[in-house]
C-alpha cells in the first residue's frame, strides 16, 4: 500500500513538475532561467501586455480556436447522431475511420496537409487552412464526447415528442439538443483548448499571421524573452485548466441528468 502511494506521488511529480516550474519563473525577477530565484515581479506579465505582436498572435489563435470548436462540434453532432440513431452499410468501419486522426502523429497530418493545400490545391496558407486542419484533428474528440451524449438519449423521448405532434426537426431542437447540450458544451471547450495550444500543424500551415504557439516558438530564439514566455505559459495553463474543468462539469451534469452511472471521461 505504502509503495503504491509513493509510486503515485512520484508519478504525479514527474507529470506536473515541469508545469509547476512555469509560474515559478514567470514571477522570478531575473532574465536567467535558473535557481536560485532572485525575487518576485509582475514585470514579465506587464511586458506581455505591452507587446502588440503577441496580441495579434493571441487574437489569431482565439479566432482559429473558436472557429475550430464550432466546426468540429457541428461535424461531431452529425456523426454521433448518425452513429446513435441510424443503421447503414459499413457503419462500424466508417465510424472507426473517422476516429483515426485521434492517433495519427500530428507531424504527418501537418506535412500531408501542407502538400495538399500548397501543391495540389494551390491555395494561399491562411488562418482558414489552419482552421480546416484543426477541425480535422479535433473532430474525433468531439465525436468521442458527443457519442456518449447521444447514446444516453432515450429513443422513446424522441418518439414521445413525435407522438405529441412535433416534426423530426422540432423534436431534435426541443428534446434531443437540450439533452445533449452538456456534451455539446464539453465538446466546444475541449476542441477550443486543443486548437488553442496546437503547435506542429499550425507551424506547417501558418501563413503571414502566426498563431500564439508559433509566436512563442519564435520568441525562444531570444533568451531575454524567456521569462515572458514563462508568464504566457502560466496564463495558458490556467486557461486550459479552467476550460477543461468547465467541460468536465458539463459532462458530469449530462451523465447525472440522464440518470446514468459515471464511467469515466477525460478528467
Amino acid at each position, binding site marked *: 500500500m505504502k509503495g503504491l502511494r509513493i509510486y503515485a506521488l512520484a508519478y504525479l511529480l514527474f507529470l506536473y513538475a515541469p508545469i509547476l516550474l512555469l509560474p515559478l519563473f514567470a514571477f522570478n525577477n531575473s532574465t536567467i532561467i535558473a535557481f536560485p530565484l532572485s525575487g518576485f515581479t509582475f514585470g514579465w506579465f506587464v511586458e506581455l501586455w505591452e507587446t502588440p505582436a503577441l496580441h495579434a498572435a493571441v487574437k489569431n489563435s482565439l479566432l482559429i480556436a473558436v472557429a475550430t470548436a464550432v466546426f468540429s462540434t457541428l461535424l461531431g453532432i452529425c456523426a454521433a447522431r448518425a452513429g446513435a440513431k441510424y443503421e447503414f452499410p459499413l457503419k462500424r468501419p466508417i465510424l472507426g475511420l473517422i476516429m483515426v486522426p485521434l492517433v495519427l502523429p500530428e507531424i504527418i497530418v501537418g506535412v500531408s496537409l501542407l502538400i495538399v493545400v500548397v501543391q495540389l490545391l494551390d491555395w494561399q496558407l491562411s488562418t482558414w487552412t489552419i482552421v480546416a486542419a484543426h477541425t480535422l484533428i479535433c473532430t474525433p474528440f468531439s465525436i468521442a464526447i458527443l457519442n456518449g451524449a447521444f447514446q444516453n438519449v*432515450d429513443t*422513446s*423521448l424522441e*418518439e*414521445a*415528442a*413525435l*407522438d*405529441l*405532434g*412535433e*416534426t423530426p426537426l422540432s423534436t431534435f431542437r*426541443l*428534446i434531443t439538443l*437540450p*439533452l445533449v447540450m452538456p456534451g455539446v458544451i464539453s465538446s466546444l471547450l475541449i476542441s477550443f483548448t486543443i486548437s488553442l495550444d496546437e503547435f506542429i500543424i499550425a507551424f506547417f500551415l501558418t501563413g503571414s499571421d502566426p498563431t500564439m504557439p508559433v509566436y512563442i516558438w519564435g520568441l525562444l530564439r531570444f533568451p531575454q524573452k524567456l521569462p515572458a514566455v514563462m508568464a504566457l505559459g502560466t496564463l495558458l495553463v490556467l486557461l486550459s485548466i479552467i476550460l477543461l474543468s468547465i467541460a468536465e462539469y458539463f459532462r458530469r451534469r449530462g451523465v447525472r*441528468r*440522464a*440518470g446514468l452511472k459515471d464511467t469515466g471521461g477525460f478528467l
Partner: protein
Amino acid sequence: MSTPNAPPLIQLSDVDKYYGDYHALRSVTLDIEQGEFFSLLGPSGCGKTTLLRTIAGFEDASSGVLMLGGENMKGVPANKRPTNMVFQSYAIFPHLNVFENVAFGLRKKGLSATEKDTKVRDALAMVGLDGYGDRAAHALSGGQRQRVALARALVLQPKVLLLDEPLSALDKKMREQMQTELRRLQRQVGITFILVTHDQEEALIMSDRIAVMFEGEIAQVAAPQTLYRRPASQKIANFIGVMNFMPATATPAGGVVNVDIAGLGIATLDADQCPGGVPNGAAHVGIRPEMMSLLFYGETSTASVAQGVIEEQSYYGDMTYYDVRLEGVSDPVTLSMKNIVGRPVLERGEAARVSWDPRALVLFGN
C-alpha cells in the same frame, strides 16, 4: 359505445410486419370500435408492442391496410396521426417540469396562455396531480410519472390512446389502484383505449374486449367473459386461467354434439360450447376448476357426478384447491372450493364425489 352501423374507429386488414426475416405480425385483422377499452394480451415477444407501434405510426406495416377514423394511415407519420401513446418507460422529458411536459403537445395548437394553462390544469386534476405543475421531472415517483404521461396524452384529446404495459413497472398495490383509475378515466373521457399487457388478470379486469396474441397472430378476440368461458383453443384456455382437459370423442348430431368423455360417459353439448369450431372424432373437453365441486354429506346433484380420491390438497385461506383422481380418468382434475362456514376441508387420500354441470364444458378439436 359505438352507434350501430358506424364504421369501426380502427380497422386492420391483413397487416404483416417483418423485421428482416423475422415475421413479427402475421396477417393481423382487427376492428376496434369508438369508445372501447381494448386490450392486446399475449406472452412476452408475441408482437403486442409491434402492433401498437404500427397503429401509432412508429413502425410501417410490411403489407396490409390500417384505417383510422376512416382514413388510410399509409405514409402518415406519427405526428400526424390522431393517436397518442403512453410509453412503457413513460418517456417524461427530463429537462422539463410537469407543467411543461403536459403542455408540450399543445405548443402547436395556437392556444392563448390562459387557455393552455386551463387545459393543463384540468388534465393534471383529472389524473390526480393538482398543484404538481412546478415539480421537476426527476422528482416524481413511478406512479406520478405514469400520471404525467397520461395527462400529457389526454390533454390533446386524441381519438385513440395507446398504452404499452403502463402498469408493469408499478408495485402490486399501486398497480391495482391504477387499474381502477384507468378504467374510470376511460369511461370519463370516452376515448378509445388500446392497452398492451401480458397480465391476463389485468386484461380481464379492465377491458371491454380482448385480443389474445400468440407469435404475431391474433388467436381470439372476445369480451372478457366469453374469452374466459369459451376460449377458442386449449392454448388460449391455458394462457387465461387454469383449465382441465380430458380426452373425448365427439359426434355432431344436428344442432348439438354428443361427446363421449373417456371414463365419464356421454354428455350432450351445444354448438356454442365449441368456440373453436365443432369437432368430429377425437377431441378434448375442458372445464375450469371452479366449475366443478365436491359433494359433502350425501348431497345430491342433478348434474354429472363421478367418484374419486383426493390426491393433492392446497389450502389458500379463502379457497382450497384439490387434485382429484376420478375413477376411469387418466389424469387427475383440479377443482377449487370456496371455504364457507360449515364446509370441511378434505385431506389427501379421502374419498370424494365430484359434480359438474355439462354446460360448463368446452369442446376442442385435436
